[in-house]
């Protein structure tokens, strides 16, 4: 995960925190509380040093669409790919993953995700296309990481 990106709670994330009964493991809940929309991943890692597997928890929160990257120093999530299109929670989740895994190189992948149709089949096809794009032009290891996380995100019910 890019240590310089700033993470913010999505409306879903805020909603989950406001309802105690929500099915969210304690580790994820604690990690979600720490996400303040101002701290970078690097800073959050220091704040959450006591939480086991903190980075994995952040990744999980992004996959669940509860947290999304926003541009560092920006005024709001409107600049972040994760919030440019609110077509569906799946879109937001995939955009968040792309941003967190690829950082500033996520632009082309984000565009592909934004253009994808709303069904899971269409999104699954776009994940495969993004995987190939990342593998060919960005980074082979990150391509695997993105595909794995994206498939997991698409397999969830939102």
């Amino acid at each position, binding site marked *: 995960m890019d240590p310089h990106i700033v993470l913010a709670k999505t409306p879903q994330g805020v909603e989950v925190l406001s309802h105690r009964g929500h099915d969210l493991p304690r580790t994820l809940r604690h990690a979600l509380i720490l996400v303040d929309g101002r701290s970078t991943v690097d800073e959050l890692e220091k704040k959450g040093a006591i939480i086991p597997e903190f980075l994995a928890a952040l990744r999980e929160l992004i996959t669940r669409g509860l947290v999304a990257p926003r541009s560092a120093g920006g005024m709001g999530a409107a600049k972040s790919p994760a919030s440019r299109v609110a077509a569906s929670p799946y879109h937001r989740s995939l955009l968040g993953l792309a941003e967190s895994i690829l950082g500033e*190189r996520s632009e082309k992948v984000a565009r592909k995700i934004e253009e994808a149709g709303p069904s899971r089949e269409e999104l699954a096809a776009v994940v495969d296309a993004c995987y*190939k794009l990342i*593998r*060919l*032009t*960005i*980074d*082979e290891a990150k391509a695997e990481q993105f595909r794995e996380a994206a498939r997991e995100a698409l397999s969830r019910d939102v």
Partner: protein
Amino acid sequence: MKFDVSIVVSVLAILVMFYCLWLVLSLRKNIPGGVVGGTWKTLTSLVILFTLGYLVTPFFGLLPPVLTNVIVSLIFLFGAIYVVITVKLIYRIIEELAG
């Protein structure tokens, strides 16, 4: 003034090679890594080498024949390596897209 076809061809080759150099360098930022990005760096190095080699060709008449032969054979060798890398890259891209 005597018209020398080889000089004209050499100058054309140098111009084409400079265009190629501009292409590889300007496209590089779009391909930071991955299967293509890794190979792109090697191809860029080879294009720089060819550009330098091609720049020498108009002066072949001034160089000792032994040196000329070495330069030409080196250009041929690296040209062959360039072709192998390009063919393998195209094949890998096809494999990735078909897979």
